[in-house]
């Protein structure tokens, strides 16, 4: 087997194992009655666990490289970036298909009485869409941020935020249209995510998207205070330490504030948009995650 492929398999192996466990374990631990029908909590948990696994698989190919510090090493090799992309995508896609197969086989063994063909296709369709969305999200975010933690949050938040933001478009339509609309949004997001990820890799430089350290804009007055020598004599170690800590983490604080706003937005929109007690379509049920 090609050394690049072998390396890639080993690179995503921990994430793949976790994804498989996340996909399969809920099927075996949740009662069968709870698993059948998307309106049940058990099915939703299984769905979220599978989505989380797919997301881990999306984060792994480039997140692992960044985490191990080998991304530059990979880019420095005399190998076409398109080939790197192809190998990573094929290995991760095969991993994802195997996870989906594991999920399907688990369901088949767990549920003796198969539902109708229509329901099966519905489940396959939903799982496929979730897998693609989470996978594509993991890819573009890791290549953009080169940080697994930031990528994880954006991968988690972007699809629900998009669904919530576009839900108004089909709020008066039937469930089927709302489902199709939501699916369309996720499909566009996924395809765009894959294209963006590919573009980011082909143009990748040995630096994050910011090209360095993010800073508060100078016009806000952060970090631009100049002090004369007369001021340096003032002994205020606590204030200086606090200021240093604040400045050290200001990017994280900004991101955190953005995340909090998104959370609040999702919560508010959810309360306005639909009644939690009402039976939801499977796609909208995803919003329950938030």
């Amino acid at each position: 087997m090609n050394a690049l492929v072998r390396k890639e398999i080993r690179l995503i192996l921990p994430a793949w194992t976790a994804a498989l466990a996340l996909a399969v374990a809920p099927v075996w631990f949740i009662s069968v009655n709870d698993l059948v029908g998307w309106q049940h909590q058990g099915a939703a948990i299984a769905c979220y666990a599978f989505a989380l696994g797919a997301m881990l698989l999306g984060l792994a190919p480039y997140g692992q490289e960044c985490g191990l510090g080998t991304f530059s090493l990979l880019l420095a090799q005399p190998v076409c970036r398109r080939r790197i992309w192809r190998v990573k995508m094929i290995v991760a896609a095969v991993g994802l298909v195997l996870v989906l197969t594991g999920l399907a086989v688990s369901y088949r063994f767990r549920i003796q009485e198969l539902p109708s063909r229509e329901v099966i296709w519905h489940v396959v369709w939903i799982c496929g869409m979730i897998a693609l969305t989470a996978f594509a999200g993991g890819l573009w975010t890791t290549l953009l941020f080169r940080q697994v933690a930031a990528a994880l949050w954006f991968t988690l938040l972007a699809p629900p935020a998009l669904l919530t933001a576009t839900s108004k478009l089909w709020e008066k339509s039937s469930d089927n249209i709302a489902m199709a609309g939501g699916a369309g949004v996720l499909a566009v997001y996924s395809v765009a995510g894959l294209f963006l990820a590919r573009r980011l890799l082909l143009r990748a430089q040995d630096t994050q998207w910011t090209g360095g350290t993010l800073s508060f804009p100078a016009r806000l007055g952060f970090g631009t205070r100049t002090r004369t020598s007369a001021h340096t004599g003032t002994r205020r170690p606590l204030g200086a330490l606090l200021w240093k800590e604040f400045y050290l983490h200001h990017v994280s604080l900004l991101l955190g504030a953005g995340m909090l706003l998104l959370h609040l937005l999702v919560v508010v929109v959810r309360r306005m948009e639909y009644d939690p007690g009402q039976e939801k379509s499977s796609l909208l049920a995803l919003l329950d995650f938030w």
Partner: protein
Amino acid sequence: MEGSGSPGRNGAGKTTTIKCLLNLLRPDAGTLRVFGLDPQKEEVAVKSRLSYVPDAVAFYPWMTVRDTLEYFASFRAQWNRAIEADLLRRFGLDPSQKTSALSKGQRTQLALIAAICPEPELLVLDEPTSGLDPIVRREFIETVIGAYQSSDPENRTVFVSTHLISEFEGLIDEFTIIEQGRELLAMPADDARERFKKIRVRFAAAPGRLDLTGALRVKQNGREAEILANGNSERLLEALRAQQPEELRCESLSLEEIFVSSKILTQAAP
């Protein structure tokens, strides 16, 4: 073989230059050519003719030394197994050892083996000896460069970015001093040694203020003085001999001294 050195202060742009050569960074302005090729457009063609050892070396932790070398070899059209075996033996690296168990010095050694075995035309080393102890450093310079040179001495170039100029001095045929991303001084090392001289003079009694027109710098301390000359050492020596010194010595500046004094040297270059 030709050795090219790029000394520069911290933040001068040495690593940035190297990353631009490898298309790991895109230059904001200007053009860049390696082997006459554009690294952005012909990335693989450029990279297949060079090897790069970064300042911070990282490997996949689950791989052994052997696996790592096989991995790098898979990207190359040629790989010299004899050099690989020789360097592994000289560095005392165990091929079955996991890279996660290697020390910083051993990781650098492994990276150097991986860089030399493909026998590239250009070997790019970014602070290759930082963090290595003096013995390993010396061994590295002698062993690695020796192994690289022995394969095809006529077609080998080593591009080194380093703070430790004195250790690489014997290898450097040409140098380019970089300051804030710009070339401050570039010339063949032998020409530089010929051109930039340091004259030490001692008089029997303090001579008063020495008036040496054309000297780059005159440092006077009582009876003794040190004068920097830029291509005019003979004339300055004659002027000093006229004052009948007790002792008069003239020697070439080392590359490190040229680097330290580079601003003075370039300001007054003829």
